[in-house]
């Protein structure tokens, strides 16, 4: 034990002798780890949130497709669908996009009547006009509309309907910024008002959600619906969740971009270390061997050097990544995902990271670096000390 501590002490002193070079190394190493860990934390948090929140939505979603484009679904289909065995509930949806000319932003309009009572539970600010129904003069807004129009709850908003007429609504409630990830661009109107703004005929809906009794029957019912009706697409909840899983997991999307950039940066760093020892390093190893150090002593010393640098850089990198993603709200990553739209979702991520992700960051950071440090040290340690000192 004493021998290991002495070697660790020598390694720390050896690093301190070249503190400028090693500080620069730790700094670059930390930044690489911080970037990679940021991507891991960012995607983990979004992945957990999407999977947890969407797990209770209806099991099947039905859309009508004509010529590859989405079409409105006829309401008459609802009766036909409810006759299928195993179907629990049919949920027709009225929703669409609204281009807001003054701001150039695109909002999502959703038609729903029975909402306010539930919303109060959902930590949403609301005025005193609490009713169970959203009537045709009321609207609920996400923070996006309020911020772009400098409005507050209680004030009026004006939208242009499909016939070009101006329609005014009283903002009876607004979602808090906490739920921005879901509600940033939403405007909730009563079903009849939403139809007028979106130009939806009375006998049409945008799409249909289908809840089924038995989870095991979801695929069967989906296939049955697909066979029975033509020109439709049935999306299961599992497929919907897998879309998000793919976006945020190792299989694709943002994770791969982040990982590739970080790994390239790390490979350059590791290659630089593995490319060979400097003349000074070789001389040092020669002297150590000359005064009686064994090969394994040299390797232990280099191992400790690697541990000191990689452990510090990795821990610091993880801390910086954590602050970057969960405290400063990922200013370096979010713009890539948000894009160049007019309205930027200002969602806050919640610190949910599994131990596996942290372990992965550690493994990908520490092990390659240690390998890149020890291999050249071993090469240097097996050379003849006299030869090294003469050439040095």
């Amino acid at each position: 034990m004493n021998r290991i501590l002495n070697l660790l002490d020598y390694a720390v002193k050896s690093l301190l002798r070249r503190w400028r070079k090693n500080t620069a190394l730790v700094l670059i190493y930390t930044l690489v780890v911080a970037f990679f860990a940021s991507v891991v934390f960012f995607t983990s948090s979004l992945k957990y949130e999407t999977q947890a929140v969407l797990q209770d939505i209806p099991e099947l979603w039905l859309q009508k497709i004509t010529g590859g484009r989405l079409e409105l679904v006829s309401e008459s289909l609802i009766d036909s669908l409810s006759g299928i065995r195993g179907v629990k509930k049919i949920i027709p949806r009225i929703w669409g996009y609204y281009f807001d000319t003054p701001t150039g932003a695109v909002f999502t309009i959703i038609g729903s009547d029975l909402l306010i009572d539930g919303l109060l539970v959902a930590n949403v600010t609301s005025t005193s006009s609490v009713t169970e129904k959203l009537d045709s003069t009321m609207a609920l807004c996400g923070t996006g509309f309020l911020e772009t129009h400098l409005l507050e709850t209680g004030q009026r908003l004006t939208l242009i309907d499909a016939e070009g007429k101006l329609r005014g609504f009283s903002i009876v409630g607004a979602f808090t910024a906490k739920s921005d990830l879901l509600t940033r661009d939403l405007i909730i109107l009563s079903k009849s008002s939403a139809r007028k703004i979106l130009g939806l005929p009375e006998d049409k809906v945008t799409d249909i959600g289908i809840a089924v009794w038995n989870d095991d029957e979801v695929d069967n019912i989906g296939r049955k619906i697909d066979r029975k009706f033509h020109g439709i697409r049935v999306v299961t909840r599992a497929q919907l969740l897998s879309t998000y899983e793919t976006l945020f997991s190792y299989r694709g999307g943002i994770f791969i971009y982040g990982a590739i950039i970080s790994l390239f940066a790390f490979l350059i760093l590791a290659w630089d270390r593995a490319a060979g020892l400097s003349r000074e390093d070789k001389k040092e190893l020669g002297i150590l061997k000359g005064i009686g150090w064994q090969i394994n002593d040299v390797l232990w010393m280099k191992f400790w050097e690697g541990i000191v640098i990689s452990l510090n850089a990795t821990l610091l990198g993880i801390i910086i990544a954590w602050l970057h993603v969960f405290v400063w709200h990922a200013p370096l990553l979010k713009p890539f995902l948000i894009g160049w739209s007019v309205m930027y979702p200002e969602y806050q991520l919640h610190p949910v990271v599994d131990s596996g992700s942290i372990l992965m960051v550690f493994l990908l950071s520490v092990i390659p670096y240690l390998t890149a440090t020890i291999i050249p040290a071993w090469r240097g340690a097996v050379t003849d000390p006299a030869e090294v000192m003469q050439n040095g």
Partner: protein
Amino acid sequence: MRKSTIAFFVIICIQLCLLIGLLNMESESEYTNFIKTEKLIVQEYNLTDFCLSTESRHTRHISQPELMAPFQDLPGFHDHFPSSSFFGPPDTSLWRQDK
């Protein structure tokens, strides 16, 4: 044990403590309440997608658009860079139902 070794262990311990502190920044009950609220909003409004980007239809509702949506707004959809680079069109092979 010498001073330099003690300093190394102290630095590592400080970093570990800081990391553990950050890991427990938000309590589990806070997060559970937050998820409960979001679930309620999703159920009340029948939402299927997250507002990650409002840049285009296929990035705003990534599970809902027509399969050619990424290419409808402009050929090559380069007006939606960079969000489209991350979202991409959905994997259609997963969506096909066996007839």
